[in-house]
């Protein structure tokens, strides 16, 4: 891949890795507000990564993706979730299904898995693309892990959004992919819908907590 500035490769890596490290931080944080702040920082890094790719690939449309990440994900969504948490009075520490130690071990294994999967398979692509794809896949898998190990509905939404950050990271890292802006916008609509859904469904009224485990008691029939 032609790189516009000599430091382009290093900076892109730095930003990508920052996104991944924040995904690790999600896994050991217990406080809801802390997790929301972390998410905000992750989205900020994503915006920077997208803008950087726009610059070195000379692809101006990626600046739009960066702008969506900055204004929508780093600012609007954390504020909206913050208000939901306050209004629903659930700002206590959050239980995990699996202890934090084993979760982090699994997370390391997942990063290993994605490097092992992606690097040998993509030898035909440029080094930058390959490595940012491996980091992106790790971020996606860690988001999935977060959704599995946390019971709280708000945290599951954050897990989903960090998965999405990984996907956007992959999409901007692949050179010249069309429709990236449209795809990231479509995803943002979905996220907005989910958050709207928490309000709309009045989950709090029905369940007292946003603990998904409690919801499962209401299943129509026992398994």
């Amino acid at each position, binding site marked *: 891949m032609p790189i516009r500035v000599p430091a382009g490769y290093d900076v892109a890596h730095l930003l990508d890795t920052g996104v991944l490290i924040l995904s690790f931080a999600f896994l050991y944080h217990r406080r809801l507000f802390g997790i929301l702040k972390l998410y905000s920082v992750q989205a900020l890094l994503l915006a920077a990564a997208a803008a950087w790719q726009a610059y070195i690939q000379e692809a101006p449309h990626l600046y739009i993706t960066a702008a969506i990440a900055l204004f929508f994900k780093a600012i609007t969504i954390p504020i909206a979730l913050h208000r939901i948490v306050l209004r629903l009075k659930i700002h206590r520490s959050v239980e995990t299904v699996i202890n934090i130690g084993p979760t982090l071990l699994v997370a390391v294994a997942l990063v290993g898995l994605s490097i092992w*999967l*992606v690097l*040998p*398979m*993509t*030898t*035909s*692509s440029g080094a930058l*693309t390959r490595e940012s*794809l491996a980091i*992106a*896949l790790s971020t*996606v898998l860690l988001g*999935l892990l977060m*959704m599995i190990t946390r019971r709280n*509905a708000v945290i*599951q939404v954050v897990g*989903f959004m960090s*998965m*999405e950050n990984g*996907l956007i990271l*992959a*999409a901007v890292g*692949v*050179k*010249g*992919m*069309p*429709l990236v802006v*449209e*795809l990231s916008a*479509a*995803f943002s*609509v*979905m996220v907005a*819908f*989910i958050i709207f*859904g928490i309000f*709309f*469904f009045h*989950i709090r009224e*029905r*369940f007292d907590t946003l603990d*998904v485990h409690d*919801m*499962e008691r*209401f*299943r*129509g*029939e026992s398994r």
Partner: protein
Amino acid sequence: MNPVFLIVGIPAAAALIFSFVSSYRIAAHANVLASALTFAASLVLFGDRPATSAFILIDDFNIYLIALTAFVAFTTSLFSARYILHEVEIGRLQSGNLRFYHAMYQAFIFTMLMVLTTNNLGIMWVSLEGATLTTVLMVGLYRTAEALEAAWKYFILCGVGIALALFGTILMYLAAQPVMGEGLPAMTWSALLGRVGDFSPAILNLAFVFLLVGYGTKVGLAPLHAWLPDAHAEGPTPISAVLSGLLLNVALYIVLRFKMLLTANAAALAPGPLMVTMGLASLLLASVMLYRRRDIKRLFAYSSIEHMGIITFAFGMGGPLANFAGLLHMTMHSLTKSAIFFAVGHVSQVKGTQKIADITGLTSSQPLLGWALVIGVVAIAGLPPFGVFMSEFLVLTSTFGRQPVLALLVLAGLLIGFGALIRHIQHLAFGTGAGGERASSVALLPLFVHLGLVLTAGLYLPGPLVTWFQNVARLLG
């Protein structure tokens, strides 16, 4: 004018207009009208097939699925008008809840037809994501704890599925980019098909795994099926009918498009065995799960998983005969299952419950409805003379010659499922001790049209249709 613009334009315009219509009755009638117009427009495709462009692709494969989708959407809108009206009359739904029901219905149909007509992998993905968004509010329509839980589960699981599918799509572009260059052609399905032989097989393999798992979640393949029974059981019945009859098919259609790409690259992994395994797992799991069901809609939701398993298995086996069987089964299942949900919807209205234990003796208390349900269940269980029997028979015979062990497993799954359905229908239709029924107005026409078509297909498949399916089967490889 390009008929595709009409096919996707009518539902899109209708969705927009209906979101401003507050009267339930007017919207319900207009919904039927819009669906009928869409169906009529879809028939135009058979005579006047538009050329392939960067965004539109119409070939033998999707043309019949477009017609089928528009047809089931039309008949379901007829059923829905009567069904929802009754729900409002008995007070289960307030008209406020229904404010956006018809707009969402048309928006859902729009996304389905977008997936089917588009040539662009990105648009395909966005449309299927849109399908999740439009149906999730309808699944939670009743606002009960169960309905909300079902909607949440549907949302989160399908959201994860759709995310994995996007990663697969990005990988597909990554595979195409060195060969096709940057830009739109590298995401255009028909352009990819011509050049896929030169792509890096390793990336293609990785992409397909993500795509199969991602879109497979929407098909309801085991072990990713957890959302399906809840969403079918807790949502209003017209939505169960379109989820089973349309959404599952359309998601599988996407998987098949990618399978065609993989097959065209000799060095990539064969997609068949993966699909065979997932199909077989779904079939066996669902057929066992059919026994202990206590909720009538959940029962038929598991039956949908079973049948999507059979179809995926057939396409996984591949070859002209198995593909033919898969296509036929896709059509038959879509028609039969939506007919069954029509019947089940009215049955649960009449009985005031969805609990199987409380529904019995239908053929004596509600002869027409009861027998329609019996016929539907007999058809879906795979008994002659219905179309489902023929497609299942073809799946089995085409497999016996090549993989006898697999054929035995399929047969076992079919028989287990058959036993469960017969056991349940005996109780539902012929038990004694009925009573406590409420009056209900029943829309029988869509029900009998669907069952009539399934019966006709079982007795006699018209020659042109057979040739058509054979062509598509060859296309699928």
